[in-house]
Every structure is written in structure tokens, then in C-alpha cells.
């Protein structure tokens, strides 16, 4: 066997081998309303498929500007040749404006402080390369997006130290938890370079509260070497704009714009969730630190946004009538869809964390656990995949400290499919009592079939990783 790099042979791209089961099962047996109505419904995919019609109708009405044309003139040649890592200025301007709109125009963004990257995946990695050295650490509140293990750590050599959040206070960040994480890092001899939050949160679906933001800002004001990165990829999925407070607003409202704190707060953004365009690979870093912008811009060479896509989106996002209507309609549809899931689960006796954003709910299935252990969570998860035929994400894959929580996505399917999913879940829960009595023999059966499937895992483990479906965990 030829010697490859450590990065190629280690496992820190974050693949959780047991997690493959859900994906494998879904791949083998994907639900289709006509062709495979008994198949597994995919609820582990944080995609926004609710507003494609709006985008398609815009395209139909704007074929002139969308494709290689400006003011009726062909610009094919220019776009084909355009690879300036500063990005198409018309696109960056439109993107900066869109980001402001997302925040109710309470703050404005300067396109000169924006760096385009190949998706938020690349933005997050690039920021780590810019802010931290191998062996440094970033503090992240748990639960967090599983992809961060790859994006933040894999090739950068940066470590993640968790800020433990618990259900006792709705998984909010506390001052104590933050300090404990910091101390823990010190014990591990790790130099803490920053804190990274996702706001609104994945997988919680909640916006970071003013209290939490105050705690974070107090901390970085006191600790002058520490950065705050806010991944605001879900900023457009908030059901009510006024409930979202971006870190940029804190800088403004707390008059931190003339302090050194300004340079240590950075935002990551993407169009993958708000606009439902993960295929286009559009991410961005926003920073007020000129040196970060300079370094990140150079690094963006490793993953620029296709000029063709920049042009299309520049036209789309410059259409203010469209963006205004889109943001409003998107919020409305997401809110309605979330309500359907929440009420549907309530009717089954299952609670969710109260959420006000995102493409998923953080569902409390602790009452369904046979014991308060992660083993029991895994067992429950496998039952839900194999028997209920729903692929949902177990909290342990998001580094949740408490077993029994699951992330369930609702925006990547039709309403009918969601209804069917709820129906299946209801049946499962209603049958719960009789199932629990046979649980012992059931789990033995499952172990048998699990063994068989596990041997198949190694065959396709490289073909189908949990990153196969890129959006999967976001």
C-alpha cells in the first residue's frame, strides 16, 4: 500500500460509520410517491425545496439577463474568461444588499468586505486557515452541524472544543458553559483562537438570543485574541425577521465599531439554504478585518464561484421586487411547514424544541428511549430507519450531550410526504407498548440484520459517505 498523507488515511473528515446505515437504507429504498410508496422518506436532508417555483418563474421571465447577456448584449466571452478572485462586482453588491435585506436592513454590508467562496463549506475552512494554526482550537456550542468536524478540522489541523448546552435551558449558551469550555481547552494545551456559532442554529432551529450574544461579546471583549465567527447560513429561514439578531447588529448597537472587537467578528453566509441553491456553490465570508479579507481572498482561488453562476445570481438578486417577495414568501412557507410538523408531532405526543427558524425541528424523543443512553438512541434511530422508514438524524451525530434528540427536516419534501411521514411515526408510537415488550427479541433480530449490513458498509464506505448528500446534515 502506497503511503498517502495522514489526512488521507485518518478519519477526521468526520465520517461516523454507523451513520451510513441511514443513508444506505435510503439509497436502497428511496421513497417515491408513485414508484416506491413504501420506501424510506428522507428527513435527514436540510434542504429548502419550498420556493423553487418562485425561482423558476423569475427565470422564465428573465431569460434575457440570466444567461450570458447584459443589456441585450452577449457577455459570454467575458464571463468565460472572468476568474478574478475579487468576484463579479455586480454580484457582490447584490449579495451584500441581499444580506442586509435578510436582516431587515438593520445593518448594511460593504461588498469590499465580502469574499466569495465555493459554498459555506469552503468559507468555514478558509476562515480557519486564516484565523488559526494547526493545534489551535475553536469553541463550538453543542449540538452542532456534523460537517464542522470536516470543514473546520480536517485539513486545517484545528481542534473543536465543545461548549456544552443542555435541554434544561433550551440548549442556550451559558456563561458557565463557555468558561468551562475555555478551561477545558487550556487543560488540553490548546490555544483558543475563537468561538464559532451557527445563528440561527443547526440543528436546533433557534436564533441566538440577545442574552447569549451578550455573553459571547463580553467574552471576546475581555479576551482580545479571540475571534467570533457567526455562520449565518440560515438567516433567511427565520419565520419572523425581527427575531433574528445578527452579530453585525450587536457591533452596531453596542457601539463596538470603533473598537478592536470589530476586527474579530466574522460572518459566514451562503445561498444554499435561504435560496435553496446548494448546487451552485455560493458561499461568502464577511469580515471587517482587512487582513482577513486579503488572506481569504487569495485563498478563495482554491474554490471560486463559477462566473456563469455569479452572473445569473447577480441578475436575480439585483431584482429587488423579486428578493423582497421571495424573502417574505419563503418565510411564510417555512413557518407553515414547520407548524405542520410540530402540530403533527404534538398529536403523537412528541415534543419539539420551540424553534423560530431553520429547515428542521429538534425533536425530543427521550420518552421513547428504552434507557437514557446513546446506545438506546442508536437503537431507536435504527428502528425509525428500518421499521418506520424515515431517515432522521440522531443527536449524537451532532455531538449532543444528551441522548434522545433527533433532527427532523421538513422543507425537502412535499406536504403529502410530510403527512405520510407523520402517519408512519404515529403508528410506530401507538404500537409502542406492544413493541417494547418484544423489544428484546426484536433487537436481537436487528443485530443480525445489522451485522449483514455492516459488512456491506466497508464495500461502499468510500462510495457513500454522509457527505454524499452534501446538505445532509446542515
Amino acid at each position: 500500500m502506497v503511503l498517502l498523507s495522514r489526512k488521507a488515511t485518518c478519519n477526521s473528515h468526520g465520517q461516523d460509520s454507523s451513520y451510513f446505515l441511514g443513508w444506505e437504507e435510503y439509497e436502497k429504498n428511496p421513497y417515491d410517491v408513485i414508484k416506491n410508496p413504501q420506501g424510506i422518506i428522507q428527513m435527514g436532508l436540510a434542504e429548502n425545496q419550498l420556493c423553487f417555483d418562485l425561482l423558476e418563474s423569475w427565470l422564465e421571465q428573465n431569460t434575457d439577463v440570466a444567461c450570458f447577456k447584459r443589456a441585450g448584449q452577449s457577455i459570454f466571452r467575458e464571463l468565460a474568461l472572468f476568474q478574478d478572485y475579487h468576484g463579479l462586482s455586480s454580484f457582490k453588491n447584490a449579495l451584500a444588499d441581499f444580506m442586509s435585506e435578510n436582516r431587515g436592513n438593520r445593518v448594511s454590508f460593504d461588498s469590499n468586505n465580502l469574499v466569495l467562496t465555493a459554498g459555506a463549506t469552503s468559507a468555514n475552512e478558509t476562515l480557519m486557515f486564516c484565523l488559526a494554526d494547526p493545534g489551535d482550537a475553536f469553541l463550538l456550542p453543542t449540538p452542532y452541524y456534523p460537517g464542522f468536524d470536516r470543514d473546520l478540522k480536517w485539513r486545517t489541523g484545528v481542534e473543536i472544543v465543545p461548549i456544552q448546552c443542555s435541554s434544561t435551558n433550551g440548549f442556550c449558551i451559558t456563561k458557565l458553559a463557555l468558561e468551562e469550555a475555555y478551561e477545558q481547552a487550556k487543560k488540553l494545551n490548546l490555544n483558543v483562537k475563537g468561538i464559532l456559532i451557527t445563528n440561527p442554529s443547526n440543528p436546533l432551529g433557534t436564533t441566538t438570543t440577545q442574552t447569549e450574544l451578550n455573553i459571547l461579546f463580553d467574552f471576546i471583549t475581555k479576551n482580545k485574541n479571540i475571534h467570533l465567527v457567526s455562520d449565518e447560513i440560515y438567516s433567511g429561514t427565520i419565520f419572523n425577521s425581527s427575531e433574528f439578531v445578527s452579530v453585525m447588529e450587536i457591533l452596531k448597537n453596542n457601539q463596538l465599531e470603533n473598537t478592536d472587537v470589530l476586527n474579530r467578528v466574522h460572518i459566514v453566509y451562503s445561498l444554499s439554504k435561504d435560496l435553496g441553491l446548494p448546487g451552485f456553490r455560493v458561499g461568502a465570508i464577511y469580515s471587517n478585518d482587512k487582513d482577513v479579507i486579503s488572506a481569504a481572498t487569495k485563498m478563495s482561488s482554491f474554490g471560486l464561484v463559477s462566473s456563469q453562476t455569479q452572473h445569473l445570481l447577480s441578475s436575480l438578486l439585483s431584482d429587488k421586487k423579486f428578493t423582497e417577495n421571495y424573502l417574505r414568501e419563503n418565510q411564510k412557507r417555512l413557518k407553515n411547514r414547520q407548524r405542520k410538523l410540530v402540530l403533527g408531532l404534538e398529536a403523537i405526543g412528541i415534543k419539539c424544541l420551540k424553534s423560530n427558524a431553520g429547515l428542521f425541528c429538534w425533536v425530543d424523543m427521550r420518552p421513547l428511549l428504552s434507557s437514557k443512553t446513546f446506545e438506546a438512541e442508536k437503537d431507536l434511530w435504527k428502528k425509525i430507519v428500518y421499521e418506520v422508514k424515515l431517515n432522521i438524524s440522531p443527536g449524537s451525530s451532532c455531538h449532543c450531550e444528551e441522548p434522545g434528540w433527533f433532527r427532523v427536516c421538513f422543507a425537502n419534501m412535499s406536504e403529502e410526504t410530510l403527512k405520510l411521514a407523520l402517519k408512519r411515526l404515529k403508528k410506530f408510537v401507538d404500537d409502542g407498548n406492544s413493541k417494547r415488550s418484544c423489544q428484546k427479541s426484536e433487537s436481537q433480530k436487528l443485530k443480525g440484520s445489522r451485522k449483514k449490513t455492516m459488512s456491506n458498509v466497508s464495500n461502499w464506505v468510500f462510495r457513500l459517505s454522509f457527505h454524499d448528500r452534501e446538505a445532509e446534515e446542515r
Partner: protein
Amino acid sequence: MGFPTKNKGAILSRIATNDQHGENSEYFDGWKAYDKDPFHLSRNPHGIIQMGLAENQLCLDLIKDWVKENPKASICTLEGVHQFSDIANFQDYHGLKKFRQAIANFMGKARGGRVTFDPERVVMSGGATGANETIMFCLADPGDVFLIPSPYYAAFDRDLRWRTGVEIIPVPCSSSNNFKLTVEAVDWAYKKAQESNKKVKGLILTNPSNPLGTMLDKDTLTNLVRFVTRKNIHLVVDEIYAATVFAGGDFVSVAEVVNDVDISEVNVDLIHIVYSLSKDMGLPGFRVGIVYSYNDSVVSCARKMSSFGLVSSQTQLMLASMLSDDRFVDNFLMESSRRLGIRHKVFTTGLEKADISCLTSNAGLFAWMDLRHLLRDRNSFESEIELWHIIIDKVKLNVSPGSSFRCTEPGWFRVCFANMDDDTLHVALGRIQDFVSKNNNKIVEQISENDQVIQNNNAKKQNWRQSNLRLSFRRLYEDGLSSPGIMSPHSPLLRA
């Protein structure tokens, strides 16, 4: 762009604050000059002509016509918009199957159909820039070494080393044998590296070569494959210029060697190809880079890493359709080769009229021009830089000095000829011929006269560094080639 304060270094990473991205080189002078005074046939006929840009602008009309005739390949047309939601949603890092098949098809055709490529081994990346960095991350740890024949594409210093921590050691090639790479030279460099206790992980080369425009012959390539197999080190061949061959026989891809050589002499797990559509098709804006490896683990690892630089699904869709169109591809490759050949001939013939010779080449978008006879001191790189300043200031051409490609001999310059129209090329040749005929034997005097100019330039350079001029590592086209606008300086380190 220095970061002088220690404090700053502690707040940002070492990578963010070192100079390993390579953009602080003095070669920005040429770009700055071009930026201030860009040539335009009618609007600025005395401006500086950009000849430092290895772009292929000769066949964009063919592609543009195809796009126009194939509206279904686009999601932005009425004929294609029905595909929008599936495409917009598609982010599987395997890429669209049809895209991978089309790329494999195109790669095969670009090599005259002498080899076929397996779509399952086609892995996307953010341009060849992303591909080269990715392959380093897969094959080497920080501190490991890759050997690289020089002169080489200057941005390799960034792409291969900056964030990976890999070290590159040149295998110098010289004019004494027309800059040919030999196995002996590689072996010598390998031994030397080992003596210094360095861990050599592989050899990386660009074939056809940038900046030389030459191709490796089959024997040498075969012997290199045997060499790396014996030493158990990797061979990465960047074949980004594969379809820019315009004369002198067929391009021999390492894929062909892998097919033809005896199985006992090659360990295919060591062989990797980097590819891109930026040069062969002239589409650098679309960011299509490919890692193609015969090593399954590398394919798997590179694919996971491709998450950091996937090709836009919109672009995948369009190219999947375009590159599956055999009639288009066959015609494109033939026509591109023909036009490049003509352009090359016109350029080198024009240079000959000025008694300037170039390294004999049959590929690439540039010529490797021999100006040693014009140097004040043939052994001095300072002379080379002086001559370069003259070329920029007096002849008003931006060309790339050999030292920016780590050439070990002063006096060689890379001059690009495929990034302009015929008229502009004609003007450029005219300027060269005029300058040489007026200044024969006077170059030495010219240089001393220009000492003052150079001193002034140095002072300007200082000011410029402190100013807020935006530097573009890539060419900046502000909303339209037609409007000169503000064009930022363009690094000679840039590939495209």
C-alpha cells in the same frame, strides 16, 4: 501587504500572515504598468499590450455558438428551465454522472482517442488550482517534499505549498539541452534531497510544459514512470495544456504510458493526473478542475476534499451536454489546434524577423523567448529585470521574466500569444521589430539610461505598496471587456 506587527500575527494564523501565497513579488510592476495604460486597438493604441496572460481566447466563438444552439443545456432558458430545481439542488460531490462521463470523453478525445478515462475516477475541484492543492493534501504531509522541474508555473509556490506545508524542490532544466527533463536530473535532485534528510513524496510536472510549451517524449515519460515506481514515490502530471498541442506529433499523456508499459514496471497507485478546462477550452471563469487518479484511496480522499471546491451544478449541466456532443468536440479540438498553430507560426516568424528566437515548441499558449543576447550581463538576473523594465516601458509589452518561473538562466521570457486578436498581435510584433531594429547594439546604453527609470520605478513601487491599489491575482474584467474601466494589475504568477 506586509503584516509587521507581532500582535497581528498572534491574532491571525501563520498562513494568513506569511508571504507563502507568493503575491508580494516585485513582478507586479508589469501588471501595474499595464493596469495604468492598457492597450486598446482604437481607444488606446499606444497602451501596454498584455502578453503575460496564458489564456486561450481563440475559440470562444465556437463555444458561444454551441451555447446559443443548445438552449436545453442551460437552466436559464425557456427550453431548459424545467431542470432548474433538480440542478439547483444537486450538490453530491460525485458530480452529475453525465458530467463525469462527458469530461472523461473529452479527456480521451483531447488525447487523440489513444486512451480512455474512467468516469468513476473523475473528481471535481476548484479549477486546476484547487486540484493541485488537493492532490498535495492527499499525498503529502507538512514538511514532505515534491520535486518539480524548473522553469515551472510560478503559482505552484502557492498552490502546492501555502496551506499544505509541502515543500517543493526544483529539478533545474537548462538551455544546454533545450530544457529537456531527464530521468538523470530527477534522480540527482532526488538523491540530493535524501542526503538533506528530506522526505521526497513525489514528482510533479506540467506536461505540456508551462512556460516552455514543450511536450515530454514517450520514452522519457515512460522512464519517469519506471523511476517513480522503483523509488515508490508519486507522479503527478498536470495535463492542463493537453489539447493546446498544435504541431510536432501527438501529445503523450501519462495515461497512455500507464496503458502501454509493462505491468511489472508501473505501480498505478502512484500515478495521478490534474486537468482543467481553463486552457484547452478557454473557460477559466467556470472553474472546472479535475483530479484523476489511478489510486482508489486517492480518488476517495480527493472526492471528499472536493466539497471545498465543487463545480457549480449549473456549469456541470452545460458542460455535460457540450462535451458529450462528439461532433462539437471533434471539430473544436481540430479547429483549436489549427488556430493555435497559425497564431504560433505568425508570432515566432515575426520574432525571427527581429532576430529573436524561441525555444522550439509545439504546445501551449505562449512562446519561451530567448533574449539572452540583449542582456547587459548574461549571468545576472538583475540584467534580466532591467531588460524586463525596458520591455514594459519602451516596447510597451507586458511579458513574464524567466526568473518568475524559477528559471536558473537569466534572459528567457514567456510571451503569450493566444489572449488577443490578430490585429493586436500584429501591433505587438511591429513594436518588437521596431525596437530591435532601432536599438541594435544600443541595448546596453538603453539599460544605463534606464537606471534612473528603474530607480523611479522602485520608488513608485514603494508608494504603490503603501497605497490602496487593489491587486488582482486574477485578471479583472469589470463588467465588460469593451470598457477599459479600472483594470487591476495582474500577477505574472497567474496561470490564466
